[in-house]
């Protein structure tokens, strides 16, 4: 009996100059507030360059709000589905995506730019233990999961079709 009511608002994407997403979001919110426009929320995910999402009851409200705002390029026609935006809102910890034997690149700290293989991951601390591939001897280092970027996922299981190479 108790059916969920469909949302009355929709999410619209607005194209912006790359790197100005936060400024545009702030300007959109300020204008909506000043002109009492029914904008519900503005979202500027760091990972998505050149776009901000605006939640409103209709596209005309978004058009009215973004008109003339600096660094706004255009509104993307159509509605963005909620599931597409949801992944930017609920950020999954990076550590959960790492597996042992994944090849990663260190993106910060003294080992920046070096490639390494994950030997262990500590989910509670959010750290991974790496083995640098470029080092001449085995050097285990512990790095925070935010400071590594995945390069190649480990193969789940080896399939031995035919001959096994040595």
């Amino acid at each position, binding site marked *: 009996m108790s059916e969920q009511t469909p949302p009355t608002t929709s999410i619209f994407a607005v194209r912006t100059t790359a790197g100005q997403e936060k400024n545009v979001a702030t300007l959109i919110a300020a204008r909506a507030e000043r002109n009492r426009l029914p904008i*519900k*929320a*503005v979202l*500027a*995910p760091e990972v998505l360059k050149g776009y901000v999402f605006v939640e409103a009851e209709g596209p005309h409200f978004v058009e009215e709000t973004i008109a003339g705002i600096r660094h706004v390029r255009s509104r993307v026609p159509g509605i963005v589905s909620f599931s597409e935006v949801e992944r930017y*809102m609920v*950020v999954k910890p990076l550590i959960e995506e790492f597996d042992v034997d994944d090849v990663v690149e260190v993106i910060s700290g003294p080992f920046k730019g070096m490639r390494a293989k994950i030997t262990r991951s500590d989910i509670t601390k959010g750290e991974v233990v790496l083995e640098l591939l470029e080092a001449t001897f085995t050097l285990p280092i512990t790095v925070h999961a935010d400071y590594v970027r995945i390069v190649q996922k480990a193969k789940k299981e080896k399939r031995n079709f035919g001959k096994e190479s040595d």
Partner: protein
Amino acid sequence: MKVKACRECRTITTKPVCPKCKAALSDDFSGLAIVMDAEGSEIAKVMKITEKGRYALRVR
């Protein structure tokens, strides 16, 4: 004044402690969500935000 985000409620603030929950702040955050109508916003519902304001998407 440096902008920081609350580790608990993700509110973005320039104050030394979070004005909403008095928790510790972090300057390592990313993303921005500006909620203007917390009750009518689906984004606010998913992010479990009940008050209007500026929020970070990810706080470390």
